[in-house]
């Protein structure tokens, strides 16, 4: 029965800055273990959309439920739900004043109330998995972009999230570093993590996504099985977008 419940349920999300609507009535369900890629032209609202899922961008209308639990509007209550969803940002957003180990332990200790030893053990085992065990004492600015982003993924995973959100995780990276980050994400997908990924990397979408969401001008234009989306997109806008992005 529990398997029938969507991991993430988004209903009628709307958001605007003054007169400018950034999201118009967006709805999406993501099943347990599903990987969904969101794509669309820049300014389509996809980045805002993914940030609304865990409530760090406030919305004017709509409802979000994570693992059957509604995301409350009160900040303190929202923080508890939010802690169960991992997030990876375009610009990594590691805390520059903390070492790698401290970055990974901070929320474990202060949000999940884990002991320092427990948090560090968790952090070290995850760092080992992404091949960065030797970097635990480094500061973010001493690492490459690819290393920083892998650590940001570890920081999110350390919270034992039920789902992971990625906001253009490779678009601030030099080309030669994109592969190492995508590899970690692919592995996560194979392990059955529920993932929502905003990205232009159509290769990743083809390899890992169950479904693709196409957004334009604040609207969800199309949601389709991955193979079908690439073979025969239903909307004219998606077809145009794909023809532009795939010829490069």
């Amino acid at each position, binding site marked *: 029965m529990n398997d029938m419940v969507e991991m993430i349920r988004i209903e009628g999300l709307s958001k605007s800055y003054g007169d400018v609507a950034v999201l118009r009535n967006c709805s999406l369900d993501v099943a347990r273990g599903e990987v969904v890629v969101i794509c669309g032209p820049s300014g389509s609202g996809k980045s805002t959309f993914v*940030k609304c899922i865990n409530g760090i961008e406030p919305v004017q209308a709509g409802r979000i439920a994570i693992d059957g639990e509604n995301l409350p509007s009160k900040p303190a209550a929202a923080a508890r739900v939010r802690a169960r969803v991992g997030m990876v940002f375009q610009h990594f957003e590691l805390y520059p004043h903390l070492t790698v180990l401290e970055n990974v332990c901070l929320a474990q200790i202060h949000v999940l109330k884990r002991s320092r030893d427990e948090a560090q053990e968790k952090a070290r085992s995850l760092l080992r998995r992404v091949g960065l065990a030797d970097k635990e004492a480094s500061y973010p600015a001493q690492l490459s972009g690819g290393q920083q982003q892998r650590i940001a993924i570890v*920081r999110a995973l350390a919270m034992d999230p039920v789902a992971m959100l990625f906001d253009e995780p490779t678009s601030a990276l030099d080309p030669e570093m994109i592969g190492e980050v995508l590899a970690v994400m692919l592995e996560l997908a194979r392990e059955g993590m529920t993932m929502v990924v905003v990205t232009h990397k159509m290769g990743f979408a083809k390899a890992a996504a169950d479904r693709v969401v196409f957004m334009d001008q604040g609207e969800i234009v199309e949601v389709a099985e991955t193979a079908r989306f690439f073979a025969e997109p239903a909307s004219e806008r998606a077809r145009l977008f794909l023809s532009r992005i795939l010829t490069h």
Partner: protein
Amino acid sequence: MNYAWNWGVLFQSPYLGWLGQGIAMTLAVSVAAWVIALSLGTLIGVFHSGASGVVRLATGSYINLFRNVPLLLQMFLWFFVVPELLPKAAGIWLKRELPHPEVVTAIVALGLFTASRVAVQVAAGIAAVSRGQSMAARASGLSTIQAYRFVLLPQAFRIVIPPMTSEFLTIFKNSSIALTIGVYELTAQTQQIQSFTYQGFEAFTAATVVYMTIALMVTTLMTVIERKVSIPGRTARG
């Protein structure tokens, strides 16, 4: 130019004593006022950056009020006007029974004035920490207070060290304004030596050298602190 030099005057009694007392008073007033300014200013700055509505209106008004009235006039207001406006008993206590009322007033006035300037720097420092950092903190479930304590303030603290150095220097200089309500700090003492001996050159040079020494010491101290807390891998500013 017709001038009889006499550097020896600085080392004669009672002038040497006056200088010493002046230096001690300048240091005492400045450091005491800095304690008020730093604690109150940080508090106001944090609230100003994070709050909205009534709180932000209050912090904004404080900053606006204390920054936009000359410090000299603020000293006069605290020293002459406030005792008049208080209930009679309190006013009399302030004027008659409070020990060294002029020194206490100078410290309070200088502290509250500088707090407004510190608040502006603190708020700017917090604003300078990127929006993504507070998003990342919130995304991991940290509460607002935790986000400030572990993520935003430690970074803002490093950003505000240079402007704080300048505010700390300014408080020593501004302490000279206390002479207008009768505090015998360094500038007042040298002015007094000048009017007793007519050796203005010597007296003012002494004061200038002391102020420059203070500036040098403060700058060195703050540079040491800045180096100590700098984040590895980030290139130093400057």
